[in-house]
């Protein structure tokens, strides 16, 4: 035992060091590096009429760059608005007070996120402030449905020629198609 002990100790030491090294590499190379646990962030709220598919932990972006996360989503029991709490990195503490927030979607099927558009107010947003200028999530399917069944029907008959002067030249068979398919 005593003659084998140093070898075992070396093997155990090598195992532990290797394991810790691979933990460290994994933590840096394969995660978002969000090591802080909320200490260096400030929170602002925003009210929306419709969140769409927005969830907790969705990114908060300015100009496509992630600066924070959605930390909480609740429903105001009186006004029945949804109240979204945004936790924003303290590095970006100079966002103007009239910054506006919109719920956007990356791509056609992508995740939804909160996009902030900075305004021109010299005062910055502070912890606990509310963003007043908001734009709710746009439901793509609802939009398509509205266009097909109301917008399309309204100007299908008379406005064909006016809406799309190139269409009638192609022939009469296009007449019975709604304008968006011509």
């Amino acid at each position: 035992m005593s003659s084998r002990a140093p070898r075992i100790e070396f093997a155990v030491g090598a195992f532990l060091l290797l394991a810790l090294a691979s933990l460290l590499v994994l933590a840096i190379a394969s995660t978002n590096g969000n090591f802080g646990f909320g200490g260096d962030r400030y929170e602002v709220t925003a009210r929306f009429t419709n969140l769409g598919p927005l969830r907790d932990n969705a990114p908060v972006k300015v100009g496509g760059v992630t600066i924070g996360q959605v930390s909480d989503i609740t429903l105001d029991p009186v006004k029945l608005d949804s109240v979204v709490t945004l936790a924003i990195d303290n590095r970006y503490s100079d966002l103007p007070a009239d910054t506006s927030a919109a719920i956007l979607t990356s791509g056609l099927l992508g995740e939804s996120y909160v996009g902030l558009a900075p305004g021109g107010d010299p005062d910055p947003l502070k912890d606990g402030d509310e963003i007043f200028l908001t734009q709710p999530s746009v439901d793509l399917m609802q939009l398509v449905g509205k266009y097909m069944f109301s917008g399309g029907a309204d100007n299908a008959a008379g406005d064909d020629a006016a809406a799309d002067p190139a269409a009638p030249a192609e022939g009469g068979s296009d007449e019975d198609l709604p304008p968006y398919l011509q």
Partner: protein
Amino acid sequence: MPFVAATRSVGRAGLFTLSVLRASKPTADFLRELVREIYKIGARSLPIIAVGGAFVGLSVTLLGYRALDTYGAANQVSAMLGLGLYRELGPVLTALLFIGRAGSSIAAELGLMRATDQITALGLMAIDPVGKAVAPRFWAAVLCVPLLTAFFCSLAISASYFEAVHVIGVESGVFWQVLKDSVDFGKDFAMAFAKAAVFGAVAALVAAYVGFHAEPTIEGTSVATTKAVVNASLLVLMFNFVMSALLFR
């Protein structure tokens, strides 16, 4: 009275857990035993964990490619790999491999100690058999399963990188960036290792309990080994569901 018997066996397992925790004192002898157990059940499990992780990474990548390509999102394959690996596959498969590799040996060793009256002998020498034989194995497992999970995950990600970049043709930078964007440090990465520590504790406790209370015969040892693998695997899978449901809502 099957209900009373079942309740009593749960109670015995709980009391056994308590006695293991109470017997864990960091004396020099305990630390020496701990190092030996880390070598036996941790370092010696490395090959099976590494190879297992690599093959899991390869097959998850193929599966993810097949599923995501339907939506034209094949370059998101590393998001599926990262989340699947850290949330479920890494801790669970490491624990299951660990149970097969080390849990069975814990149960067999303790069962044989029981069969050859070594546990009784320790007691006669006024040495606590739980503190001497069980506690070091328990703490070695709690320490080793998270570390083995780290090996499992790094091998799986490396193998997946090879498969995705060199075989399927995902862009290398896209692979890493999608992986980084999808895996949250606190919610996914840290939880994976918390889960792994719990699984290590469960696996070692079940194996030690079954081995420690084995029938003192040759057959009793083999029954204990079988029981340890079956019960520990089932418990790990159940704990995994409960922890996933609580942690990842």
